[in-house]
């Protein structure tokens, strides 16, 4: 799907997350990179070095915003100050779409700063979709929601995670940031077939794909973003690309960050699957 209404009809290739240890390399060497993803919250500030760096990056690269604290699934109303600052940043970056997680993390104005899993209920889907719509209407750009890794499931759930995702995106009429690493992590923690998940997602709504590494512990898998992408995740990615076509792809590497070249090399492995996939083949 070279471009759709959920990613602003763009045709982005393979990007990597913009991280502080790489600033110097990027600004001095100017490597060829299709695009960078920034964590919005790191730049929702009044001034100083982070915005100065961002402006230099914006002068040379395409940038897409990805958030970590909108908490579409929180029962709380959207934080007006958060939205105001986010809109300022959107104007600065000209991001063609904006993503954040399908999760919750704050309640009664208190923030956990974590991506907590949703109860998969119809009430939660309705509340979440309403919030996605409100945020999109305020920001006036396409929104994509990202599936998260989870370590817990709730008794009250009335559907599977992918059914919940579909329910939200249909009600909100928004896009999906499909994180195939998160699907894999959750599938291992909750014992479901990750391909069933990937095959159930409405391919025409996929605006972007995330790939990343994870860590295995004795009793569960943790989404740590501190390793290269593992084979089972590449297999899911391959399947996602078969369904969604050539889709903007982003490698996340947030901890134990190696050199820029190593991160970029890892991201470019996605080309093995993207080559020749310019059209969506929904299967």
């Amino acid at each position: 799907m070279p471009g759709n209404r959920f990613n602003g009809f763009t045709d982005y290739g393979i990007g990597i997350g913009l991280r502080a240890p790489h600033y110097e390399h990027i600004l001095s060497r100017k490597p060829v990179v299709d695009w960078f993803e920034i964590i919005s919250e790191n730049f929702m500030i009044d001034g100083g070095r982070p915005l100065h760096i961002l402006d230099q990056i914006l002068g040379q690269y395409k940038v897409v915003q990805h958030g970590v604290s909108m908490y579409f699934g929180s029962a709380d109303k959207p934080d007006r100050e958060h939205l105001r600052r986010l809109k300022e940043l959107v104007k600065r970056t000209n991001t063609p779409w904006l993503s954040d997680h399908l999760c919750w993390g704050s309640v009664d104005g208190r923030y956990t700063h974590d991506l907590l899993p949703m109860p998969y209920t119809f009430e939660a889907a309705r509340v979440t979709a309403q919030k996605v719509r409100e945020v999109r209407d305020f920001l006036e750009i396409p929104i994509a929601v990202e599936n998260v890794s989870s370590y817990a499931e709730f008794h009250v759930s009335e559907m599977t995670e992918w059914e919940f995702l579909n329910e939200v995106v249909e009600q909100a009429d928004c896009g999906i940031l499909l994180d195939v690493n998160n699907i894999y992590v959750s599938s291992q923690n909750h014992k479901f077939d990750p391909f069933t998940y990937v095959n159930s997602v409405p391919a025409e709504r996929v605006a972007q794909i995330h790939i990343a590494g994870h860590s295995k512990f004795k009793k569960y898998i943790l989404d740590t973003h501190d390793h290269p992408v593992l084979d089972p995740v590449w297999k899911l990615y391959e399947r996602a690309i078969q369904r969604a076509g050539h889709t903007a792809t982003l490698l996340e590497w947030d901890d134990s960050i190696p050199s820029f070249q190593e991160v970029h090399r890892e991201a470019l492995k996605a080309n093995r699957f993207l080559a020749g996939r310019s059209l969506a083949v929904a299967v």
Partner: protein
Amino acid sequence: MKLLALQRAVARAVMQPLTPSERMQRKAPGGGRMSAYAARFIKPNDCLTSFERLEIYNRQYWFRVLGSMAEDFPGLRAVLGGQRFEFMCKAYLTDCPSRSFTLRNLGSHLETWLRQNPSWIRDRRVLALDMVRLEWADIEAFDGQAKPPLRAEDLSKIEVANLQLTIQPYVQLLELHYPVDDLLLEVKHGDDTSDFGSNAVQERRKRSKVRAVAKLEPAQIFLAVHRLDFSVYFRRIEPEEFALLKALRSGKTVERAIELAFRKSSVPLADRAAFVQHSFQTWAALGWFCRREEKMRDVKARENRA
């Protein structure tokens, strides 16, 4: 269970402090067993009980917020010692959990909270409060707002008799009782080079920090925490400069601010003009003056005069 009720129940458990061995407490918020509390809303699976699944989030929460505090307040950590700092942070975050979408603001209430809970800093109260103020000023100066700088032509529009100058929002002015600027720089320098340290080197650095804190003598200092070329600097200033800048920031005219600055000054009368001139030149060169936002009534008044 409704969405809001469920989220409140989960958040109470997730934000409840860990045990000393960094595990989830056996006692649930409000009493009762945590295992029963968790089982009420979380499914177990073949590998993990409801308690264990909830514990993953409980631990992640505390590791994240404590890590953020340690990153933002390394100076206070050096003053209090690692263990007391951690206990203090747990108490602070229990009383003042984050109410902002960004972790940047996690320590915004720490100074006020410490003044209300002085037992955490009882034998080093003044030093600890000085350090917290400096570290928060450091954060504010790093990413605070920079307004358009004042230009010569902006001055020409202002009546000299009522000349007011605005200080850049990112410039932080502090009156302190200890030279904590030196201490913080020493602590940060040690941390910056810690990535190649062996255990012995780390231990030596820790002892060096303890010695630096122990030998610190009280001395009143005045600081402007500001940034230049996007780096934060701690600039020591004279008491008269501090008073002048404070007066300007509070909206006093330049004339009145100068009067106030020298009220209790030991600077000889004959030297004051040169002192003021030098100070203003320095601040202008550092970019500390910015254009004043005109209030609507000022705009109207000027238009009427025209």
